[in-house]
């Protein structure tokens, strides 16, 4: 009996101090067919029938204990080896990484896509039209007949007496009105490039972008215009922005309004961006003039509508803090790199 206990203690001691080679040796020494456990089993033949089962059981317990101790040791050794390996593989995580280089979308594209997405979400379609336009769509149908003083407001690039580079995306609206007069209601926005004979400087560009909106249906009101623009401004600038209407004049709307929004920089308290007023002029709008509806063949006694127009450069400049409009047309990649999202 003492014999078994001694074997166990010797074995466990040896296991606890073994490295992986020694552990393999010990496995052979104790657990192989010629090992110490097996030789104990051989001793069983000399025992009485009564003693045999008892002894056999004890040997099995011993075998199990040694075997388990060996497995545990093996795991322990493997783990420490793994730890040592991992430690040896330590890297400097602050070194520069492989960074796949993204390009960017132009800030004007970003603003246009954002506007498109806001209005598509409200059920609007996105209409387009030719930049080389007839003066009929650019002016006449927009309630600005030849000789109308409002033609003075925009010095236009004519290419012949009746064709021009469109000076306002209103031209797209007039095409939509004509095409869709029989399929009311109309809900569209009209983004695009426009051109005016302005010399380029920090705040003027002979080419720029507008996005106009047009809704025609029954019982459309100025309050609907206000609600729609408020949603747009909140999506584009700030969730708690407010807007206010100031009376204005456009030939194709009556009444007409300039729209101011609360300054997105100071929230309306007054800062250098809003020149201390808390308000920023952001777009023009109004109720579609009955003449415009009638010219498109829409019954102005039954249908009303609103229209608005916003300059994409103005939105981009306000939103991204751009101070010189020419930066938008220079395409310097150091500038463009700032618009990764």
């Amino acid at each position, binding site marked *: 009996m003492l014999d078994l206990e001694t074997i166990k203690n010797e074995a466990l001691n040896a296991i606890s101090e073994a490295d992986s080679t020694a552990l393999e040796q010990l496995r052979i020494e104790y657990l192989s067919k010629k090992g110490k456990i097996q030789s104990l089993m051989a001793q069983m033949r000399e025992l009485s029938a009564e003693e045999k089962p008892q002894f056999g059981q004890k040997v099995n317990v011993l075998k199990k204990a040694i075997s388990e101790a060996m497995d545990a040791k093996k795991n322990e050794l493997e783990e420490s080896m793994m730890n040592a390996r991992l430690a040896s593989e330590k890297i400097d995580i602050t070194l520069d990484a492989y960074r796949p280089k993204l390009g960017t979308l132009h800030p004007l594209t970003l603003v246009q896509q954002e506007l498109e997405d806001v209005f598509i979400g409200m059920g609007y379609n996105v209409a387009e039209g030719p930049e080389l336009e007839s003066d009929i769509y650019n002016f006449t149908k927009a309630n600005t007949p030849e000789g109308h003083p409002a033609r003075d407001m925009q010095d236009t690039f004519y290419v012949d007496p009746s064709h021009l580079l469109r000076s306002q995306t209103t031209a797209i609206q007039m095409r939509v009105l004509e095409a869709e007069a029989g399929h009311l209601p109309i809900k569209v926005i009209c983004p695009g490039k426009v051109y005016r004979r302005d010399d380029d400087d920090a705040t003027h560009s002979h080419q720029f972008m507008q996005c106009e909106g047009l809704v025609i249906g*029954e019982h459309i009101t100025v309050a609907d215009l206000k609600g729609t623009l*408020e949603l747009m401004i909140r999506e584009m600038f700030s969730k708690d922005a407010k807007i206010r209407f100031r009376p204005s004049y456009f030939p194709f709307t009556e009444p007409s309004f300039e729209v101011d929004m609360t300054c997105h920089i100071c929230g309306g308290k007054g800062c250098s961006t809003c020149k201390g007023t808390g308000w920023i002029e952001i777009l023009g709008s109004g109720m579609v003039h009955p003449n415009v509806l009638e010219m498109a063949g829409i019954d102005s006694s039954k249908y009303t509508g609103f229209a608005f127009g916003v300059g994409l450069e103005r939105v981009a400049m306000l939103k991204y803090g751009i101070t010189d409009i020419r930066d938008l047309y220079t395409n310097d990649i150091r500038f463009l790199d700032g618009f990764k999202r």
Partner: protein
Amino acid sequence: MKLSLKWLSSFIDLEGLGSDEIIRQMVKCGFEVESVEYMSQGTDLIVGKVIECKDHPDSDHLHLTKTDIGKEVLDIVCGAPNCREGLKVIVAQVGAKLPGGEIKAGVIRGQVSNGMLCSLKELGIDENLLPEDSPSHNGIEELDDRFEVGDTDILEKLGYDDTILDVSIYANRPDCLSMFAMAKEMGAILNREVRLPEFAGKADVGKKTDFRLDSRSANCPHFLAKVVNKVTIKESPEWLKQHLKANGVKCINNLVDISNYVMLETGQPLHFYDLRSIPAKEITVVDDYEGNYTALDGIEYKIEKGDLMITSEGKPIGIAGIMGGDNTKILDDTTGLIIEAALFDHAQIRRTSNRLGLQTEAAARFAKGLEPLAQNKAMDRAVQLLLELADAEDLEETVEYGKAQYEPYEIKESLAHLNALIGKEYTMDEAVSVMKRLSLDCRVEGDSFITSIPSYRANDLKIPEDIDEEIVRLTDFDDLRSTLPLIPQTVGKLSNIQHIRRVIRDFLRNRGFYDTVNYTLVNEKYINEAILPSGEAVEMISPLSDARRYIRTSLMNSLLEALSYNIDHNNVNINLYEISKVYTKVTEEERLGIIMEGSLIDEKVKHLNLKADFYVLKGLLEELFDSLGFEMGRITIKQNDLDTKHFHPYQSAVFMMDSQVLAIFGRLHPNYLKPLKLQDVIYGEVMLDVLDKANPAKVKAPVISRYPSVSRDISLMLKDDVKAGDMLALIRKVGRQLVKSAEVFDVYQGEHIEEGYKSVSLNIVYEDKEKTMTSEDVNAVHEKILNELLEKFEARQR
């Protein structure tokens, strides 16, 4: 429009309204004030008397004064040459704020100075507004007996206490270019009573006349003329001069000043001719005069057919509506005159004025449109003032050509219509009170109110919505609620081309390209060097400059310009694109331009470098088209034979789809790049309309074979003009559906390869969707393919 608050206050009591409050109210009611100009500025001013004036010991021009301002005597150093004992002067006390800064107590060359003796110029008064004999031109102002020592209301007494607002007038309110109409408008805005001078019918005086008037142009439908045989020319009274000065109008003499003043008041440009210069007693307006004519500014202008001219005896005497003539103007010895008050077509005046580059106050008013009764009103007022201020005598009756075009009319609007349009609940009282504020006669009939429109609002108030705007404009509008249109639901979505643009932009952005926006208008060279232009370029009638004369017909040169800009600014690896419309006289197209210089991938850490070349752009375009539903196969590639002037003739190609040119791309020609100082540029231009109009392949889930595939390589020695595309096509043709994929994975020329030959290695993957291919099956088809390749391309196996 310059609005003098002082002048305005002669019509409206402005008591209690500061300029800030007035501006706030104007902005609310739809008038933008562009700038505020104070005629003079200065605080802490007081009248003083110089009681002692000695020369400064250390200066050849400074004076040491003792100046009595009543409450104390100040030591003030003054540099003005006219400073002397006994003078009454304007003293800016210590702490006074002047346009040049704040006055501080100080020491000037060792002498104490506690204030400043002022010139009017130092108080911000424009030199042009000073009387010619004002001491302030070269020294300090000398005050007269009206001023007592200790007085502080100096600027008021001098009449320089005016504030002038520069108001921008919208095109629908040309009436506001007249002071009388503006005063009425301001009365409505400020809700205060307006008192205007009475002058109706003042021109209905005078003896019989034999003066004759005629117009031979439809663009002059109305003309009034009146002969005044005797006038006295002299200086205008001070009040009149002040109003003119406040409006920036130069004062000349009472006659010229009256014509200008009446224009400011009524909006109707007037012209006075010297009676002696029209001896024929006849004026005819024509529009067929051609020749040079000298206007009263002394400059000769080239008059063309269509321009309206005033003539007498067939000879020109003035450019109608724009400027009078040098040969008929009022002179210093004028003793009689002819008054002209006419209506000229606004569009014609604008055309002539723009063409001659002659922008006058008169032309601006005609161009913006006059109120229909302006000629009659101005004639009445002019006669009144000539009688009062120029001792006019011996008047003849007014001669009239045509008739004023105005029939009184009414606009009927209902509360229901008003409220349905605006989305508010106005009451009848609110609506009617706005009409009253505007001095418009208005009566109520049931749910409606009917407004009489006076002549001066006829340009603007035509339909009920115009009346609605007046109500919105003049009542508080900030409480308007926000709602959304209650109309049937619509589906909003991007159109096909809009979707294609977004796919392209995302694709290129994710591969390192920058989206650019370039100018549409370009120079002649960009047109001459365009890529596949679809026609003749469109030219501007009046371009801003030669650099912006044409609408571009292709995108390449704009992108090359953007590329050069970046290179000049030391940027490297420049990969740009632009999506834009291009135009010719007959076409509108949408194109995509892609430009690459340097590397598309340049990764130092992992040593990855993908230099831009023909194949990089070719592969990008193929994958892009694939992602839009257009696979190679439907798209074919061919050698570029369309443009070898701008493209390298052997490293460029054309993609065709549905027998149309889809894209041209490749390396740009070194000869074209050389003058641009560019080395190696890869460029492609894609015709997006071809993609937009074609039907993309339907998305169909791929069938993945359950049986294994087998890969085999072939290495061949061939003549170097054999095209990989032809070999792959043959492999597919022979192997049919058993060829799952085939590609060239190596091409080698050089050492160990005979001149004119190349070694090409191909990989073919075989697969049968019905069964596992045995090696016999694979061998059979592979042998067949190999033999065909050897035979057809005269190849040798390596």
